[in-house]
């Protein structure tokens, strides 16, 4: 595994060029560039805010902010997974003709989405500061949080991009799985609303824990230790599951990688 990381490291420039390419292609042809990509979460936020605080009257204070600080990290996951599913197949001309560590293909998509996510966080930071939030007291948790979530995202993308070479219809399934995952994570609702007997399952979802952390930082503005949820135990379980997914993704990818060129 260390050897593989060394090889990957020697190809870092390719990884960064491809990441740059992803971003360039995404923003090319629009003067507003990055601001267009902000439009999606903002519109989603407006729609959900309308539905939940005006139509359904869920009674959550400042629902827009409540929502967006969990929505952005989840979008980082779901966009990465959705876009990287077909990354090996759509680059068949490269995979068939040139050797390079194949994980670069899904990884470049993750990095491009990470970059996007960070920019969104900066925009959120600015917006909240203007609104007078004092969340910056606890922002030191953020880099660690993003780092851990990054492993979850990488694990998932490695897994789906490799499996998709062998099961082409996985793409459709992934869309559904990501939707279920979205509603299975307390993003549009607070965890407390979930009936006691379901909370156990919801808490096993590492995204539940990470979303709660993001929310504690930006919305509740509580020290992570003093927030009640997530506690140490829940955090450790989430990190454990994250690492498990990462290693499964990694080993499945490495196991299937030699056959990519023959199968596509």
């Amino acid at each position, binding site marked *: 595994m260390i050897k593989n990381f060394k090889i990957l490291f020697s*190809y870092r*420039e*390719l990884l960064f*060029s*491809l990441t740059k*390419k992803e971003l*360039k*292609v995404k923003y*090319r*042809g629009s003067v507003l560039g990055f601001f267009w990509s902000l439009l999606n979460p903002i519109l989603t936020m407006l729609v959900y805010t309308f539905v939940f605080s005006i139509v359904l009257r869920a009674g959550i204070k400042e629902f827009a902010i409540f929502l967006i600080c969990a929505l952005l990290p989840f979008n980082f996951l779901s966009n990465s997974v959705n876009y990287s599913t077909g990354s090996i197949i759509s*680059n068949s*001309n*490269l*995979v*068939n*003709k*040139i*050797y*390079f560590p194949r994980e670069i293909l899904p990884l470049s998509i993750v990095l491009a989405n990470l970059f996007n996510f960070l920019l969104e966080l900066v925009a959120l930071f600015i917006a909240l500061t203007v609104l007078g939030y004092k969340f910056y007291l606890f922002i030191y948790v953020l880099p660690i949080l993003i780092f851990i979530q990054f492993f979850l995202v990488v694990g998932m993308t490695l897994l789906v991009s490799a499996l998709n070479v*062998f*099961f*082409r*219809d*996985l793409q459709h*399934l992934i869309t559904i799985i990501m939707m279920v995952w979205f509603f299975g994570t307390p993003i549009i609702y607070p965890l407390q609303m979930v009936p006691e007997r379901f909370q156990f399952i919801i808490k096993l979802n590492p995204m539940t824990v990470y979303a709660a952390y993001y929310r504690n930082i930006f919305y509740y503005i509580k020290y992570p230790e003093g927030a009640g949820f997530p506690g140490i135990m829940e955090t450790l379980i989430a990190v454990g599951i994250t690492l498990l997914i990462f290693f499964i993704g990694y080993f499945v990818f490495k196991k299937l990688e*030699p056959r990519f*060129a*023959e*199968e596509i």
Partner: protein
Amino acid sequence: MNKKENRYREKRIKNPKNDVAVDIRSVFKRYRIYHEKIPSLKNTILRMKRTTFEEFLALDNVSFTVDHGQTLGIIGPNGSGKSTLLKLMAKIIQPTSGEVIVNGSLSALLELGAGFHPDLTGRENVYINAAILGMRKRDVDKKMDEIIEFSELAKFIDTPVKNYSSGMYMRLGFSVAINVNPDILLVDEVLAVGDQAFQAKCYKVIYNFMKRGKTIIIVSHDLDTVSDLCSKVVFLRNGKIEDIGRPLDIVTKYRAYIEELDKKRIIEHQRAERKKIFKTVIEDNKKVIDGEEISRLSNLSVNEGTLKRFGSGDAQIQDIKLLDNKNREVDFCKYGDDIKIVYEVLFRKKVEEPIFGVRITDFKGNIVYGTNTRLNNIKTGIFKKGDIVKVTFRQKISLIGGAYQISLAVGYKDNKTYCDWINDMFTLNVIHKNRAEGISDLNPEISLSKTISKI
């Protein structure tokens, strides 16, 4: 670069084993060809197993070595495993068994401009393409001018490549690839890039590469290139090494093999064509018995030139053969050989004094020679319904080399209407040791007598 090379030489002296750049050790590569078109989860779950597949042995116990500084050519017919071999060396695929050992950095030119993104400019694509081929950004920065100059695309380098012509695309791809500067270069049929001038430039680059002591492995169908550039050639056939050795010997051997193959292919094709015609002959016979098709057939004689077969059907040509003087079926002969055109005619109605004929045309459709029983003043007599006659034309083929078509006919005594006419029944290939223009050989004797000028 120099430092690196020096270091590299020292290493080579210390370790004589490293003289070998690429070592292929009893490599097998087996492909699975799945019967299912697109692998899917749905099918897997429904059937609880993957669908059936066939195994295909692309490489069958292949071993050879390439020394540093050597230029190796790999030749062989399509599907012989050449590209599989290159892909193994480039680590794109893994051998089923055996070992592929590569000493030194390797770059593969299997496809030019692979991974170019249409929306990005030429310059941006150069960076990505170079990175894919394993080049550092600062090296690309240094070589950027060189790359652009070589590609002759200075004007267009900042336009998106989707606006490039395919030639421009390939030129840019090649310019990036040759600037990567690996120890070992794999080239797969990519030297045919751009116009003549650009090709000449490409060859120069390859020569320079060789001069600097780099290793090159080329797959090509261009046998002249292979014998020009290579110091060693591998001839692959059906995944096995047919022969390996000096370029001239191997290329000659391969050429002979291709010629043999071509000949077989032509014979096979003609056999199939003939079968097709025989089949229609038999079917036509059946129809004529019913008596309904006769008028239709005679109507068809209007555009006789383009039709494969036409006539009233009162007599049918069948069992057609082209024989040499030992009565073997042939489709080629040497100049001056005797050839027999033999066919049977089955009469469906009473016909008086029919005319039997043959016609030989060249491939443009010009009549080379035609004859029939009438022109030779042969009385054929009266044939009743059900009579069969066997007609033999023995011809001396005094034609220059080339392909000729043979047509056959049975006509009524008026010499204007026909019972049955089959156009281009056979192709006869005539082999002649001398070349000439036209069609007939007039047996020249050429002499020169020179008068020396007195001035």
